[in-house]
């Protein structure tokens, strides 16, 4: 325990120096501003801003980059809430209820609770990292392909629970999502699958492209159909900040979300993605009236946003303690560290204690900055919705094009957001929901890879999923969840049959 405090005070000594405070602030500010552009998620933002850190000392540079990361993450949630365009997988959930809240004139409340929930989650996650970072490292190593596959199966069950309408349609959408994720070069054999021979499909479909098309562009097309409907968004602006009732409704979801996000964030291979989905599922199951979800329930923003931020933070653990990046953002951080002459690995903690603990302390500082930057900006963002839609949507359209182009410099990506936009528009017209499909897409790739890996290693023995205790436990949870999700609809379906 003594170590814990001496380490933290060492860290805060570094993080609270004037220069590092300034860098954290600057990083958070720039990250927020760039991240708020539709389509520009954390990865694109960090890659974009990496060169401006070259002139700094490694600690300062990493503090600034971490700030950019949190800023971009939070900026992405802002876009999801305001214009229903999730910049990355984790803000898909935020878009579900957050954007509905915005439509009901509660954009300010949604943004406010997202900022406050994130800050709380960030604070807890910082303490978790400082206290348990090293021991928790082992958790990442226990998770092999078998456990990972079972975790993904559990994730897909979340997607069923996530859906509002017909279960059959939700399952169909999940399957379509997983199917879409298999497009591209097969990892094991290198054979191309379903690419139509097109070179730009060889690496599969980019998540940002799919999400922006299915959510953002389709949303624009749909709004254009309902002139009278979308004006609701700008008529009533309502309160700018959450009030006591809002807090009362959301403090428990924040606590639960933080816990879930923090645990899943530590897992390798992008476990943090599952955090918001898991939190949403939990809140929906616990709610007295689950039908409110998807129609602007504040718990549906508070929980997932906290989970998102907690996961974003704890996903630094494998990077800092092992030097192994659990996801693409962290891989970029590895590169950034390497460029600054620090090779991430298990020795960073002992060789560069000021950097290590300084960065951990700066995580908390960064979260505080985010709160300071974002609460005043809520008013500004909300005012953005007052712009007449006929001017707002062409601007969003152009930003989407620029954002997508900037990720890979591929004009074909830009064309694809048009194609997926139309597909998304059709899906809405046919009564399908896009969120389960996106979750299926995100988890699909990981699921297939880990399934095949696990079976190669077990030499084709399916029992491996049940023989290993963690994997068996996860599968059991998935099965129970699925039964709980399906029962009411089966019963309802029977009732309907009887009434007819």
């Amino acid at each position, binding site marked *: 325990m003594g170590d814990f405090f001496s380490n933290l005070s060492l860290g805060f000594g570094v993080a609270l120096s004037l220069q590092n405070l300034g860098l954290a602030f600057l990083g958070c500010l720039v990250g927020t501003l760039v991240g708020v552009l539709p389509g520009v998620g954390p990865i694109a933002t960090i890659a974009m801003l990496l060169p401006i850190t070259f002139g700094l000392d490694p600690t300062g540079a990493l503090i600034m980059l971490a700030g950019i990361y949190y800023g971009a993450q939070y900026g992405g949630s802002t876009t999801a809430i305001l214009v229903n365009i999730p910049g990355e997988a984790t803000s898909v959930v935020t878009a579900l209820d957050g954007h509905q809240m915005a439509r009901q004139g509660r954009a300010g409340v949604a943004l406010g609770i997202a900022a406050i929930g994130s800050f709380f989650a960030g604070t807890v996650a910082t303490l978790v990292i400082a206290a348990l970072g090293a021991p928790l490292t082992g958790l990442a190593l226990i998770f092999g392909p078998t456990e990972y596959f079972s975790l993904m199966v559990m994730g897909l069950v979340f997607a069923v629970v996530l859906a509002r309408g017909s279960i*059959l349609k939700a399952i*169909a959408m999940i399957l379509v999502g997983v199917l879409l994720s298999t497009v591209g070069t097969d990892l*094991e054999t290198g*054979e191309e699958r379903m690419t139509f021979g097109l070179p730009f499909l060889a690496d599969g479909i980019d998540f940002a492209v799919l999400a922006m098309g299915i959510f953002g562009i389709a949303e624009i097309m749909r709004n*254009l159909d309902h*002139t009278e409907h979308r004006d609701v968004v700008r008529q009533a602006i309502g309160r700018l900040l959450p009030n006591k009732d809002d807090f009362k409704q959301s403090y428990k979801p924040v606590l639960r979300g933080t816990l879930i996000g923090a645990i899943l964030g530590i897992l390798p291979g992008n476990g943090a993605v599952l955090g918001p989905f898991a939190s949403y599922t939990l809140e929906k199951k616990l709610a007295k009236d689950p039908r409110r979800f998807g129609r602007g329930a504040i718990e549906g923003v508070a929980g997932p946003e906290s989970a998102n931020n907690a996961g974003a933070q704890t996903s630094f653990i494998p990077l800092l303690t092992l030097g192994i990046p659990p996801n693409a953002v962290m891989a970029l951080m590895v590169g950034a560290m390497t460029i600054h002459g620090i090779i991430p690995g298990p020795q960073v903690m002992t060789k560069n204690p000021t950097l290590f603990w300084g960065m951990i302390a700066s995580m908390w500082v960064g979260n505080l900055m985010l709160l300071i930057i974002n609460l005043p900006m809520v008013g500004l963002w909300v005012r953005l919705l007052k712009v007449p839609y006929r001017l707002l949507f*062409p601007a969003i359209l152009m930003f989407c094009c620029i954002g997508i182009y900037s990720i890979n410099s591929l004009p074909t990506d830009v064309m694809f957001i048009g194609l997926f936009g139309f597909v998304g*528009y059709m899906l809405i017209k046919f009564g399908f929901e896009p969120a389960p499909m996106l979750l299926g897409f995100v988890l699909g790739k990981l699921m297939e890879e880990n399934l095949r890996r696990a*079976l190669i290693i077990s030499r*084709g023995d399916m029992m491996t999923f049940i023989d290993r205790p963690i994997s068996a436990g996860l599968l059991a949870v998935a099965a129970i969840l699925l039964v709980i999700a399906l029962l009411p609809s089966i019963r309802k379906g029977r009732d309907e049959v009887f009434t007819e």
Partner: protein
Amino acid sequence: MSVLHEGSEPVRHRGPVRAPQSLAGGLLLIALAALALWLTRDLDQGTLNAMGPAMLPRWLAIGVGLSGLALLAAAFLKEGDLLERWSLRGPVFVIGAILAFAFTIRGYAFGSLVLPGLGLLVAGPLAIIIGGHATPEARLRDLVILALSLTPFCMVLFGDLLNLPIPVFPQALTGLFPADWSQKAVLRATAAIMAGAAVLVFLTTRGRRQASVDVADHSGRI
């Protein structure tokens, strides 16, 4: 997603199809499944021990197809939603704007046909002006002002401040400026000229709002 379902009023349909929305959805899923099966026809399925590239896509496609069939069956058995009304104007202009952006942002070479890279300078305004016409309320004047002010903003933001490798303007443009100007100087000057033009258009056409091209006249959907 939608709070509003235009077609959800309980209009009783005669005929065997009782849920047209499910019918269309089912057909879409079946078509998708068929496409996936056709695309993976030549790939190896492998065994559990060494799964081939086709194993998962094929089973998923079968799953999607079965869901489609179930929806199709439901369309004849259970009362359901009608299809919502479609409008083509939105999708056509939005996709048009996206394609215009994609084709002008950087140069292409299709065999002998060479398209010059026009950069953000052209792609941005094209996207805004074409896309803007997706709504019947579009006003050309407003869109021109929007294009002339947002594009320079993006040029400075992405090209100058963030140093993104995004093409900003055609290389030929540098020829119009004094030769000793750097790329960045040309960028800033161009942006300033555009912003100036935006102000100019705004001021000169201010009083003539009604007279400006108003596409909203034939109100309603295409």
